[in-house]
């Protein structure tokens, strides 16, 4: 009655394991992955298109000191972000991009609100 299923189970004892041992081995990802955000500060023109298109109202423009004076640049709250990629698509100078780094951990939730200087990949 159960002989065939048992034989299949016993045969699957020699299959290789499919899970990886996480902190020691990591996955290989392709290049168009949508994980951590990265802002290229000299190229940003402060148009606030990313703020308007974000579905969650996660991006806000804050005052940032640069070499050319005080400009408004995007600040992102990572704990609310959907990683949908709409801000990357709508940015006219392609300065806000989503990279493929996916391990960002912190003990305190307030470290997840990333100012523009911290987004400098």
């Amino acid at each position: 009655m159960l002989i065939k299923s048992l034989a299949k189970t016993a045969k699957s004892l020699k299959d290789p394991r499919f899970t990886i041992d996480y902190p020691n081995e990591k996955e290989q990802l392709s290049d168009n992955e949508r994980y951590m955000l990265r802002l290229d500060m000299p190229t940003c023109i402060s148009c606030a298109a990313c703020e308007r298109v974000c579905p969650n109202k996660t991006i806000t423009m804050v005052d940032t000191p640069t070499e050319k004076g005080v400009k408004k640049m995007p600040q992102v709250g990572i704990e609310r972000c959907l990683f949908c990629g709409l801000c990357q698509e709508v940015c006219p100078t392609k300065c806000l991009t989503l990279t493929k780094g996916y391990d960002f951990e912190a003990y305190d939730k307030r470290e997840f609100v990333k100012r523009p200087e911290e987004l400098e990949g």
Partner: protein
Amino acid sequence: MLTFSTSAIANWLVSLLSSASIVKQAEGLAAYAIGVAILIMAFAYFLGWIERKIIAKVQARHGPTVVGKYGLLQNLADFMKLLAKSNFFPKSSDKLLFAVALPAMLALSIFLILLLPLTPSTGIGNMANGLLIVFALFAFMPLLIFINGIASGNKFGEISAQRSVIMMMSYEIPMLIVIASIGMLARSYDLVNIVESQAHIWYIFLMPLGFFVFFVAMLAELERSPFDLREADSELIAGWLTDVSAPYYTLALFLDYTKMFLGSLIVVILFFGGWSGYGLLPVFWLVVKALIFAIFVMLLRATAVRMKLDRLLRLGWLALMPLALINLIVAYLLFVM
């Protein structure tokens, strides 16, 4: 020096009231019992580790790897975490019965393993009715599950308790008929005699039908797939263990593997020749055969789908009982007459 017979028990009880050398005998017995009990618990812990690793390998994943080398201390970490939590009884439960049932089950299973002969010379062996005593006490397990389920006071526990009693009605009688046929083949109920009379040929080759019936009944008793109806994990949330709080749950986890060790030992002693084998120590052969049987039961757990209750009743009365009777008659005709 530690072997008793029934008249020796009577003498012992008489001298208990009148002499002082009884303390030394009781000390030796207690030391033996405590030592073997610790070894049994260590082996049940080891069985728990084996089960986790084997089921993980079948399912193409790793199993515990971090705590201790190869994950050996994972179960210990689980037990320590569970023991540190707080204990409470629900308001609608019967507190005395609820607090007593699980420790009684664990004590009963360890006591039963102590009664089995582990080597030809030690153990509380040479009991003339060892087989009957073991199975009489073994039948208390489903009753204790019933008590725990009823005393827990919620509906899932009651359903599980009812299922436990109904299951017991279906597999106990075929199991007893098979034991009767084993006693008939060996011409005694003494466990040491049963093992020694398998020195030429094991009983599984003489009675394959009887082995099949006994195996199915033992699986149902041990609450293992495909018969884990009492603690049906995906239907009633945990059956009779639903309202059990964390320190008692430790006992329940431990009980699972202790019962499996007990069941494997009984099957090996009755059908596979016990400690017979050449070369190494007899205890080594017994434990290795029990381990192989236990691994087979674990692979069965990973494969099988759970049976329904009425199907189990039909299986017990319409399939197992006739097979056990046929086995008894054929064994009588072939080997005794």
